[in-house]
């Protein structure tokens, strides 16, 4: 059993199929990159994985719990980081952490808040309200909140948006560290160098369906077809344009 198991996931908006028959797994300590052109169905997939959008068909298992049948148990092991941080305007940074600590029943959460705030450079902003934070800081707070209950499954949608260079480096280190500690991570991003740098495997989707899935090196090797090395960016562009041409 893998921490993330997705079997024949489909999601439609009315008559429009946004995600079609997607299947993949993520092992412990693995980072899976979810990439695809705009409108490919990445965010829909992530939202379905996080239990936000009920799938039209198929199965999603988080640490063995079906997201539809045992949603509460599945969500206890999960943290979802949307591309746009939506914080509570009326809670300070510190209160956000307390709120999440209690919501996820984190034992002795107050002792875990300080290291996290330090990790994300928010230690001086404990009393600040979201309106007093920059876009990048809000993103950091959202991620610090998500890390508080030490989830086994982390789902990131464009995690580096709005971060400064130091923030980007720290975020990459944080993600890599969580994976080393055994977390299963899905990372969706248009930054292909980030995906290549951090991810062990990749799932390329287009028009809602999977067009490539596996270790990044395998994908590159497949595209190169023995004619020298290709970058991941090159491999991605070729595979998506080939798919578009066959449609």
């Amino acid at each position, binding site marked *: 059993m893998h921490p993330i198991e997705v079997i024949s996931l489909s999601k439609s*908006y009315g008559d429009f199929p946004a995600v079609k028959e997607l299947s993949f797994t993520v092992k412990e300590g693995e980072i899976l990159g979810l990439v695809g052109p705009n409108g490919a169905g990445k965010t829909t997939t992530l939202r379905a994985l996080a239990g936000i959008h009920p799938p039209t068909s198929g199965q999603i298992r988080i640490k063995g719990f079906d997201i539809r049948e045992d949603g509460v148990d599945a969500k206890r092991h999960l943290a979802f980081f949307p591309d746009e941080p939506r914080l509570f305007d*009326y809670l300070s940074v510190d209160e956000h952490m307390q709120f999440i600590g209690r919501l996820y029943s984190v034992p002795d959460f107050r002792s875990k808040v300080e290291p996290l705030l330090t990790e994300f450079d928010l230690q001086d902003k404990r009393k600040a*309200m979201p309106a007093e934070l920059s876009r990048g800081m809000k993103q950091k707070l959202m991620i610090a909140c998500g890390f508080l209950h030490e989830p086994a499954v982390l789902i990131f949608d464009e995690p580096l948006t709005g971060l400064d260079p130091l923030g980007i480096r720290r975020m990459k280190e944080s993600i890599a560290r969580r994976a080393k500690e055994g977390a299963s991570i899905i990372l969706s991003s248009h930054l292909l160098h980030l995906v290549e740098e951090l991810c062990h495997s990749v799932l390329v989707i287009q028009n809602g369906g999977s067009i490539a899935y596996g270790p990044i090196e395998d994908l590159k090797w497949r595209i190169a077809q023995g004619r020298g090395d290709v970058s991941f960016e090159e491999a991605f562009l070729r595979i998506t344009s080939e798919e578009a041409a066959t449609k």
Partner: protein
Amino acid sequence: MTGALAYVALMSMKNRILMSLRKLRNARYLISAIFGVAYLFMMFGRSFGRAGRVRIITAQSVGTDIMAGVIFLLLVAVWAWPSDDAGIAMSESEMQFLFSAPLRRRDILLYRFLRSQMALLISAVMTSIFASGSRNFIGMWFFFASLSLYMTMVQQLRARLRKMGIGFAIRLAAVIAVIGGSSWWLVRAGTFGTPVIRALLFLPRFFATASLGNMPLGLRLESMAVVAAFGVLCFFVSATVKVDFEEGSIALSQKKANAVTRQRNQQAGQWIAFKRLPPPFRLGDSGMPEIAIVWKNLIASLRIGMMPILIIFIAMTVVIGQSFFVPQVRETSNVFGGLMVMMCVLVPLIGSNVLSQDLRLDITRIEYLKTFPSSGERIVAAEIAAPLIVMSITELFFLGVTALFLNTRGAAGNIARFATPQTMVCIFIFTIPICALLTVMRNAAVLLFPAWIIRSKEEPRGFVVTGQRLVVALGNLIVLAVALIPAAIVFLPAILIANRFFSGSPGFLAVASLPPLAIIAGEVWIAVRWLGKYFDSFDASNELDRIMT
């Protein structure tokens, strides 16, 4: 270039109308549109029906003179407006596209003028019908269009004056002098017919004649031509006066955007009045996780929703305080006592509307809420708990103060019956489930019709929105009435039994009120369960982007 701008303005208008029409394919929008149109039709019908009998401005000449006087005041007063930024307020996308394009100021002003015409036409129709009960909306449209061009011109000229060293104080002094002088002249002459007053009202009179419905057609057409010519003149002055147009437009647009955001936040109850108010209690490490949601919403209630409650508290304190200083007359005590009893009764109705720190506040973060490790039922229950707690405390306070007042100030008659502890307890225990019922209903409306409750910034408002509000208000009333029927049915035998076996005893009210109370509480429980299930299966995919915009 002008053609391209006219194209953008016209296409925006057309697409807006088409989008509204397309939405009507959705039954929820269609129903609200029907309600909205019916409502406006009723208003129009009443207005037209009234038009023949009553006219606000009946006597032609006096009406024209008075209206011309008002218009004169308006035309002069805008010179005293404190803002002296040049430019015009635009949306972010307009600034991005128009200011980077090779356009003259004249083109941008023309675009802006064309863009505003639909709104001005609707305003003209509404004003001509609601205010004067006439159908002269074309004249009213000319009036509004020309006035908007005049306002733009004055805005540019205020900025020009600042560049020349003439600031707000001098402008204000000049305006006071002109208005004061002309008023003095008018009062002294006692008629609008003196040459000076006639000269001052020369242009405003054309505006008045063009917009009034009871003028001869020829005179109206003539006035409309003059008003239009004046508008054209203002347009060209605005386009040529030397000011920092682009810079000023950016500043004005930013100000406008900030004001709109602030206003929306206030309307949505997201304006934080007391940012640094401490949490009501310390959140423990262990226990029910949903307490965190209650804690969060209590903080929101304190920081956002306390202002209206504080105002009521202050008003009540003033009423009680001053009653101690007036002679102890039974009638006075009865009046104050009656007012206080009324306030207690109004808490469920007003409270559930004012204290919206529940799903109504969190609907824009529903994605986040749905990731919480808790069932929908528990999340919904926790969400509504905080406003319910605040309402209960408020009600308890009001009842306590009312009982104290009624017992110490010697109220008599029907009012005195409220002074007994039994009645007060009975009101309190009835109020809470009714508050809960109303709060659940309002939260259900948010989940069932999220796009009706939270509208995006760009979404046009109109009769569909009017219809939506009517449907929601009507729905709330119907659900409340239906929900109270079983309790009312049970209440009758309960009161008979209580009267038969507990007449005159303190247990009378308890026996009479507990069965209906249990019914309402049961209904709340069923509603929360149902809403929780709905929350679990809630798929905001189709509504979400509009909510989040």
